[in-house]
């Protein structure tokens, strides 16, 4: 079987202890939440951390609560199943519940966490392979090599952001609380993801993602559509998160469209979404908006399905998402 590389294991009981270990080890430590992405990757030697810091015992990372101003704070250690089933999420942020419910299998959703999905390593089928497979090819930019196999002329790694929750959280205007020893900071979701397949998060190794803050929905509707070959479990090869507020007179006063699994980070289609503002959301307008949004999708041949097909589906899925919200 495939064996894990050796590592030191820490299971701190409190948040200060956890961030202390992270500070001590710096980039040599990795956070173990559900482990559903981390451990298989370690077996394939994408990661060989000196230390794993389990956050499974941290009470600070459990639960969902509402604040006085109507915001919702989700602790990063909540499981994907808990998230998908939580009444507050289902009623106010249906797109997030839908996205969480569409991740992988029931077993993985019972183990994997929101924080883990947000921080999910970018994916590429030249990279998500065993050590010997990657060695046969001569490795790649993202790990141990100096070439991007999907675009050999590219100076940049083009691995794909494959989180289902990330595009939704960006569309909902979420902010993330990052805690390190002695300090913490809030980062808007849209700034948390970087357009770089290697350094894909605006997060230092010493920092721990502890909370996701969602602003009040303020009359918006949201949805998430996911494309993949196998409905029972697969990463997205395209995700579309959409948020709309449509006033009683039918006029759209807020719109957000975010594409997932279409680039190294969730792509925010503001040019397209802005076309909706102040307008009645007609099918004709939706078609134009979808065409505009799909311009941002630049899929490459590094995940499932033909990339031309995925590009074409970006337009179809945006159209379907907006149609659903406009009904």
């Amino acid at each position, binding site marked *: *079987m*495939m*064996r894990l590389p050796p590592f030191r294991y820490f299971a701190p009981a409190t948040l200060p202890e956890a961030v202390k270990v992270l500070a001590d080890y710096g980039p040599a430590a990795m956070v173990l939440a559900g482990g559903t992405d981390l451990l298989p990757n370690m077996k394939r030697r994408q990661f060989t951390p000196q230390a794993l810091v389990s956050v499974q015992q941290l009470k600070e990372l459990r639960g969902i609560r509402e604040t006085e101003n109507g915001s919702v704070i989700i602790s990063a250690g909540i499981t994907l199943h808990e998230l998908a089933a939580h009444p507050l999420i289902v009623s106010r942020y249906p797109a997030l519940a839908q996205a969480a419910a569409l991740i992988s299998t029931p077993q993985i959703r019972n183990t994997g966490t929101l924080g883990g999905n947000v921080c999910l390593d970018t994916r590429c*089928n030249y990279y*998500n*392979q*065993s050590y*010997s*497979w990657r*060695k*046969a*090819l001569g490795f790649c930019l993202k790990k141990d090599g100096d070439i991007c*196999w999907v675009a050999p002329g590219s100076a940049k790694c083009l691995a794909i952001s494959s989180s289902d929750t990330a595009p939704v959280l960006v569309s909902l205007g979420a902010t993330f609380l990052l805690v390190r020893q002695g300090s913490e900071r809030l980062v808007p979701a849209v700034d948390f993801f970087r357009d770089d397949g290697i350094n894909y998060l605006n997060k230092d190794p010493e920092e721990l993602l502890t909370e996701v803050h969602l602003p009040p929905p303020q009359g918006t509707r949201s949805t998430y559509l996911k*494309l993949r*070959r*196998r*409905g*029972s*479990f*697969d990463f997205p090869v395209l995700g579309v998160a959409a948020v709309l507020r449509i006033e009683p007179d039918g006029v759209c006063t807020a719109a957000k469209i975010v594409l997932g699994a279409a680039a190294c980070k969730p792509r925010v289609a503001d040019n397209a979404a802005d076309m909706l503002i102040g307008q009645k959301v007609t099918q004709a307008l939706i078609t134009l908006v979808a065409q505009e949004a799909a311009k941002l999708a630049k899929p490459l041949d590094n995940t*499932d*399905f*033909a990339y*031309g*097909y995925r590009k*074409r*589906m970006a337009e*179809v899925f945006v159209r379907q998402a907006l149609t659903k919200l406009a009904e």
Partner: protein
Amino acid sequence: MNHNDTLIGKPLPKVDGLAKCFGTTKFADDLFLPRMVYGKILRAIHPHARILRVDTGKALARPGVLAAITRSDLSIKYGIMPTSQDETALAVDKVRHVGEAVAAVAALDEETAEAALEDIEVDYEVLPPIMSIEEALTAQVRIHEESKWGNAQKEVALEFGDPTAGFAQADYVREDSFFYEGSTHLPMEQHAVVADFSPDGKLTIWSSTQTPHYVHRALAKVLEIPMSHVRVIAPPVGGGFGGKSDPFPHEFCAAKLAMLTGRPVKITLTREEVFYCHRGRHPVKMWVKTGFRKDGAITAMHFRSFLDGGAYSSYGLASTYYTGALQTTTYQIPHYKFEGVRLFTNKPPCGPKRGHGTPQPRYALEVQLDKAAEALGLDPIEMRLGMLTPANSETINGLKVTTSGLRECIEKVRDRSGWSEKFHQLPPGRGIGFALSCYITGAGLPIYWNDMPHSSVQLKLDRSGGVAVFCGAIDIGQGSDSVLATVVAEELGIDPADIRLVTADTDLTPVDLGSYSSRVTLMMGNAAIEAAQKVRSLLFTVAAERLGCPEQDLSARGRKIFSRTDPERALSFAEAVQLAETHFGMLGAVGSYKPPKLAAPYKGSGVGPSPAYSFSACIAEVECDPTTGLVNPVKIWIAHDCGRAINPLLALGQVEGSVYMALGEVFMEEQVFRRGLHKIPSLLEYKSPTTLEVPEIETILVESLDSRGPYGAKEAGQGPLLPVPPAIANAVYDALGVRIDEIPITPDKVLKALVLKERGDSLRVSVPQFAFPAPIRWQPGEKEKRP
């Protein structure tokens, strides 16, 4: 207690079912021997390269490493077919696909063994890889330099009757080209082996294999040990589907490492390594020209197939013939020509996967018939009903069909699915499609030429009333253990639970050729009946005397032997055994089965003959989204003529499993290679359906009792896969009006086809040119002819 009581036809649970549910079944990887060490295999990183140097010096110096082997340790060639022995356990002069075994180490633990692989130095001279059928046909470089026909492993040309005359009689002739993508088996259990070499020079291996007898022969040959000193035990196998039917490098390596270290050695493959063992479905390009009369009857057929064989021959000889053999067992084809060629490419070798070489031509044939029916203005089902190969007939290529429940299969799915209200009448985006098929119940000939039995069973009865049954057959999940226990229990009138099975152990059990070609129930079942009836006759002899009634009046049921006319006169089974042992001495019996001589007298006639043929008919209903191209199967109706369903529960399971596997092939699976590497050698990325992707399956068993099968039984394990892919393709056409003449049917192909349809065009499959040899000509009644 009624002498008419029978176990045959009862949906009994599997005899090994509880152990599997409780997780106590011991598969090969569950075995641990004292002092056992671990082996790992270094695999090729180039698809095609000459090996200049292999140096294991550094690996051997690593603490914890006990032995390392290379080409000089295992250089004797082997191969499953006697005429194409082109494999070595460790690559000798060249590597021919990524993942081919190059060296192996044994170490105290897996981590050390894995680390030691990194220490092995291999120098390669990289050669141009050949990655497609077309490249294999045109490339100057040869994958096997000694091969006769360039990169063609096998060329076949057969002609039956007078196809030219047949086409001249046709009212309508059409030519179509098809591509059936390759796929792999995906057994849940990865291959594993434990080898133990004792100081007296005896080798024992426990291996997850479908063919312990063939592994036994190959081990003796490669390791140069007498067969009598080699013992192969196949523990329960966690799925095979054809992927564990060849001897494999890890088996030889574990054995050699055990011999060198004097310690038991275990090698368990990773999932990625299973993709490199492969022997899966051949990607096949096909061209078929068929002549029809106005009523749909076929006047002649010319079928060509091009098989992408991968790097080695494996079962390729048989695979090639199978792509042309069974067209005639479903439809009357009065004149038939078949040409086939299997090409070497630098990919993991293809071989037998559920349906071995027949799902590909079946796809081509059934989709073409659907097109022809439309062109002729006929209902595709009615058209077929008019041209079925009748029972008890001989086909133009000399195959002798015994029973056939095909007509009943067709009528059942037609009626149950509501075909006549649905075909051409469902709303846009929804469609229904039909296809049928045929498969063998065991190959008429063994892999290596001999006149000995194909399966034998030995019984030993003890005084407690227990019965030990010994047979070389291996249960790979299909339920052969249950069939064996049921058959013996049926004949002896005891409960299957009273039976202790000893199977698949070349030291203890008589030979059964293995779990392949859907042969086990028929051949092992017949052997078991013979053995059990022999021993029952001994029991009846003593019981008749003790009970004072004639033997013909006796029945064995409910653990008793009793008079049918006066059931009060009875002995318990154990009493009867004790009496018989007193009278005859130790009680036992053997039974054997060998198929009748079936092959017609022409060269190449050995592939296709079978004691009996199974038949299937399938109707698929699908819904298609023309904006996304996604196709969703709504329901599958499938009827399968398995002869007598000895255990209908197991037969249903085989049919449903076949449908699952077919849906994976038709919608998801692709053997894609980039830069010489398998693109997605993992269970996450290589897609196959789960329960959630599979629609409701309505299975109908049709029981045409075949006198050649035990209680009339035929096969159920492979045939039901065959009609599903073409039924889906025909349903997609009914739904959207587009033909997808290749699998998998992916949404991008559907969208492309819709765009082409707007322009009055359609998707096309290209088929290469090839100069086939002059055909061998034969027709029924003729004596042997050679070219």
